[in-house]
């Protein structure tokens, strides 16, 4: 199986045309950076979605390390109508991983373009290339003893800021809203132009990572979750490392408590008393990240019954909801805020407060404390062992940070998941006003029947939430077109008008967020 190619072609591209493009790619990048053999492409095709690999098989992969090479790639793609799917570190598990949105697209893999261009410990900014991982940044900050703290998603060590921010991912520190803290971006446009946002276009500027908006239209947002350009550099702000970090947990016994938890928490987040992206994890998320597996409790098919969940709580001390938050600052600041926070929960009379002193090195407290202080770990991948078998999709509706809303969404999701024999494994990631209600739709992808159920389940989750006026903030590649429909026809018309203007040949990741000139019909 290691002939010249793997018998997958881009949509609408004949073999001869593809071969011409491949020859040009080789000339531009060197043979070793043009991958067309099946065994070279297999790693890009590993997906957790409920569909066969073939549906998202790439035709080739290219590795580039310079802006000039990326410019060369888009030039060739325009000449031969080759669609490319760009990845940075490509660790987008549950959202499509490294595989293209449409079968046959060529992957532009920027993992090897991995320079940390600048970290400024005075202004607390970073400028990095796409292949830079949080692990690499963490090591750099440690080795150079810089007084800075990272924020990242749970895949931390192996994920990276560019790719994560391009999908508007989140972390768990006070800088957890990653796109909010992003500043300055360099993008290769489909016509080969190199565009810098914000202050980046000003000759001799030293404020690219300092002031976000620049002048006139500010376009960074337009390139996130989109296919209007290829990001080759990104700046972002780093939090100064505080003298004191105080992580804590509050454990709640009952599912219904979510209403009070959220309504108690909101003023604390709104006032900045609790400054970080707090998490409220349900019992099964907690169990998965504590590395319990379903098999330890039950082997019958279907969803895990509530009495088993109760038993798990009794056995382990986990709550129906497990809240993780932290305080940051000087000892005085932390003490003042700790009094405010602990008083709120004590006066309410529900919720067992757990401090770091009490928790010690116990999981999952330990990994939560690490994520909230920018220390990488992959402990949370235990979620994938709950049922095992490599099936996982994130269903992540946006919600008001209002107790009644969170309760309503949790009940709605749980009902639909149970109908399909799956579990409600979820956490709320808490901003002052919004929730990323993150639900891990876990299933055994080695089981064909269960895989079909998971697919039907995800469809129904989208449908039923939509009927209540809810939509997701981000989704896997199998459902990107479907979710685009949730946001209405006018938005899509505008998106396609921009696409036509910036990428008339439709070469940049057609299908990304449902943006595709070949398939989109104006309503």
């Amino acid at each position, binding site marked *: 199986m290691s002939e010249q190619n793997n018998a997958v072609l881009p949509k609408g591209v004949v073999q001869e045309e593809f071969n011409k493009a491949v020859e040009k790619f080789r000339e531009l990048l060197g043979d070793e950076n043009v991958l067309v053999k099946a065994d070279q492409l297999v790693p890009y095709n590993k997906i957790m979605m409920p569909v066969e690999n073939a549906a998202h098989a790439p035709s080739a992969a290219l590795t580039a390390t310079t802006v000039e090479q990326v410019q060369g790639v888009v030039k060739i793609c325009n000449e031969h109508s080759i669609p490319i799917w760009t990845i940075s570190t490509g660790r987008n598990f549950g959202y499509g991983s*490294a595989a293209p949105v449409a079968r046959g697209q060529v992957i532009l893999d920027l993992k090897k373009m991995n*320079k*940390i261009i600048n970290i400024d410990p*005075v202004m607390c900014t970073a400028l990095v290339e796409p292949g830079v991982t949080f692990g690499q940044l963490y090591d750099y900050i440690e080795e150079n003893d810089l007084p800075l703290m990272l924020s990242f998603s749970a895949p931390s060590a192996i994920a990276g800021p560019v790719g994560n921010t391009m999908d508007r991912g989140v972390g768990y520190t006070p800088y957890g809203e990653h796109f909010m803290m992003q500043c300055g971006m360099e993008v290769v446009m489909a016509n080969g132009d*190199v565009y810098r946002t914000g202050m980046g276009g000003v000759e001799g*500027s030293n404020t690219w990572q300092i002031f976000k908006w620049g002048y006139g239209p500010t376009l960074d947002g337009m390139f996130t979750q989109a296919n209007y350009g290829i990001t080759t550099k990104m700046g972002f702000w780093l939090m100064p490392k505080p003298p004191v970090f105080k992580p804590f947990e509050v454990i709640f016994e009952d599912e219904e408590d979510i209403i009070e938890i959220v309504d108690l928490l909101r003023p604390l987040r709104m006032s900045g008393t609790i400054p970080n992206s707090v998490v409220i994890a349900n019992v099964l998320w907690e169990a998965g990240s504590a590395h319990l597996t379903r098999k330890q409790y039950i082997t019958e098919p279907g969803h895990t019954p509530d009495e088993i969940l109760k038993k798990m709580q009794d056995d382990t001390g986990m709550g129906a909801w497990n809240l993780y938050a932290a305080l940051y600052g000087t000892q005085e600041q932390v003490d003042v805020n700790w009094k405010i926070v602990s008083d709120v929960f004590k006066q309410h009379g529900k919720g067992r407060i757990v401090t770091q002193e009490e928790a010690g090195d116990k999981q999952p407290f330990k990994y939560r404390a690490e994520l909230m202080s920018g220390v990488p770990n*992959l402990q949370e991948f235990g979620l994938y*062992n709950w049922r095992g078998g490599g099936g996982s999709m994130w269903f992540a509706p946006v919600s008001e940070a209002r107790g009644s809303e969170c309760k309503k969404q949790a009940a709605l999701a749980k009902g639909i998941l149970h109908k399909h024999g799956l579990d409600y494994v979820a956490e709320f990631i808490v901003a002052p006003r919004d929730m990323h209600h993150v639900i891990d739709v876990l299933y055994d992808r080695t089981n064909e029947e269960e895989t079909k159920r998971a697919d039907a389940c995800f469809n129904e989750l989208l449908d039923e939430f939509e009927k209540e006026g809810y939509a997701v903030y981000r989704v896997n590649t199998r459902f990107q077109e479907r979710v685009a429909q949730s946001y209405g026809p006018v938005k899509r018309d505008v998106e396609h008008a921009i696409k036509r203007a910036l990428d*008339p040949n439709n070469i940049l990741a057609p299908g990304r967020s449902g943006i595709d000139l070949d398939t989109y019909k104006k309503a």
Partner: protein
Amino acid sequence: MSFPLSSAAAKRILVAGAVLPFALLASAAQAQEDSQWKSGEHLYDSVCGHCHKPEVGVGPVLEGRGLPEVYIKAIVRNGFNAMPAFPASFVDDESIAKVAEYLSTLPAPAAQP
């Protein structure tokens, strides 16, 4: 349907990128060196160990199990159920050989409960 690039755009492709100076402050550009991972141990500590170290337990213990390089490579390249795959751009063949060697030199940990 396809629009050829205007010749002006084509020219821009040739000249862009070479004319964007910007001041760097304290630190020099820093990338992982040519040898992708310094050693088998470095790769294990930076990537695999975050899941496979006995004290973590996301993935099964690999230390001191005498796993053949060819097996490790197959798992890394294909991924395996809950385990993600890694392209060569992330972990190259040479590093897989090194990590296989490193793992085989470690003592097998005491039996897990």
